[in-house]
């Protein structure tokens, strides 16, 4: 096996990892702020992928352009879901919250099954098969774009949380809910914003995945399980952890596919996952739990 193949595989793994990181970021944001595990995250991503898919297929709109529509819709959907179904269970026991998000996932999946049938579909855009060579490394163009897009979204999110009043309010509500309420932060609205942003993250990830990934009603499960691994690997609620975990998982999957058989690539991820949990249960960048 030549070095350039390995390097290319490594680089493509990093690219894919950027996308995983973005999915994981949305998940970890929602968890970090509300301590709710959003099982519907993958189903929401699947719907975002269908939205971009059909906009491209029927309207001829490039997935990246369709973000102008799907991002605000994704945010609004997340915001509305929070207000309608998550807020009522915020004070409920944890298992009720799990059942709520799981139920939502099942509902969204079956709705997609009804609407689009079970067949996987793929979207061919002009650059689906294109690649860019960087010295000896051959990069898939759609993956490169997704990587750049994921990094851009991550950076924007970071700046938002660090510098805007709303972003600071979000971090405050995540750390100290009563304290936040007592300085006049409308905590429930801020929670809805967090869910909206989390959903916008998967919406972006969905659109950017569509040029090189299939779409089916179950596609969200595949992706979100990987995202769960990333979140736990990086440390629940940690942003840097989601980013590092995403890249690591992307690389392991890509190299695993190269050295072992493609369909066995995921074994590497889960082996890594189990090892990290054994030796650092709080995740790579997570704070040790009390």
């Amino acid at each position, binding site marked *: 096996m030549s070095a350039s193949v390995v390097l290319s595989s490594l680089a493509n793994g990093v690219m894919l990892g950027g996308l995983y990181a973005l999915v994981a970021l949305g998940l970890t944001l929602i968890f970090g702020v509300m301590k709710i595990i959003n099982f519907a995250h993958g189903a929401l991503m699947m719907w975002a992928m269908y939205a971009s898919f059909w906009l491209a297929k029927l309207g001829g709109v490039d997935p990246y352009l369709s973000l102008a529509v799907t991002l605000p819709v994704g945010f609004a959907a997340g915001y509305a879901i929070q207000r309608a179904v998550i807020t009522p269970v915020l004070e409920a026991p944890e298992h009720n919250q799990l059942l709520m998000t799981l139920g939502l996932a099942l509902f969204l999946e079956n709705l997609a099954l009804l609407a689009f049938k079970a067949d996987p579909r793929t979207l061919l855009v002009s650059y689906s098969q294109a690649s860019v060579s960087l010295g000896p490394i051959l990069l898939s163009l759609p993956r490169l774009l997704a990587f750049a897009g994921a990094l851009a979204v991550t950076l924007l999110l970071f700046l938002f949380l660090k510098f805007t*009043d709303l972003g600071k309010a979000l971090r*405050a509500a995540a*750390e*100290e809910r009563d304290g936040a309420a*007592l*300085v*006049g932060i409308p905590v429930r609205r801020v929670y809805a914003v967090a869910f909206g942003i989390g959903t916008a993250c998967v919406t972006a990830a969905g659109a950017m995945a569509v040029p090189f990934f299939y779409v089916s009603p179950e596609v969200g499960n595949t992706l979100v399980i990987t995202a769960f691994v990333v979140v736990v690997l990086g440390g629940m609620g940690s942003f840097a952890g989601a980013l590092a975990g995403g890249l690591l998982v992307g690389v392991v999957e890509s190299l695993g596919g190269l050295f072992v058989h493609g369909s066995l690539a995921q074994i590497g991820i889960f082996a890594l996952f189990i090892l990290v949990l054994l030796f650092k249960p709080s995740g790579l960048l997570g704070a040790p739990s009390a």
Partner: protein
Amino acid sequence: MLELEGVDVFYGDLQALHGVSLTVEASEIVTLVGGNGAGKTTMLRTVSGLLRPRRGEIRFEGRRLDRLTPDRIVEAGVVQVPEGRRLFPSLTVRENLDLGAYTRRARPARARTLEDVMARFPILRERAGQRAGSLSGGEQQMCVIARALMARPSLLMLDEPSLGLAPMVVQEIFRIIREINGRGVTVLLVEQNVRQALATSRRGYVLETGRIVLSGTGQELLESEQTLKAYLGR
């Protein structure tokens, strides 16, 4: 200014407050004393909207508070310094203070209030870039009081501000409370440090197992047999 009338609060089936009525007049310092579990914190949390009374009314400047959300209550000018400080530990001191002025009432004047507050608590200016969680106990208490002041309160409620602090720091905190009051902010103080609190206050109430059992001027309560027995341990 603040009136509670027959307020009942429950945790599930457990009644924590029984028909609590009290008033705080503009620009006075009123103290609420009582032992552990008497319902002092419950009362403040209810006024702040974190808990809802099952019966009774809470009015502030004639306006009903008991149906408002906590952020609206802060907006109305009723601001609490919570027990246990409740700072945002991983945010910097400066970010904590900025968030104190989150409401529409306080936001336009944020820079000016910040300057005021920093002048009153010079230590916070020194620590501005530090994570709030890294401050000492006394500094954290000052930071949380400063954060509450950022909201430009007309009524400031403090829940056990002297808890767990060294005597010197306690003196300093009480001095600051008097000074804040001197600038026209009404103060409702909840304390276990009965002697100091009552000496600082014009009037006080004694809360026992969720009921107001005694009220009077600070001096009267200090001299009352019942207060002494129940809370000063003699």
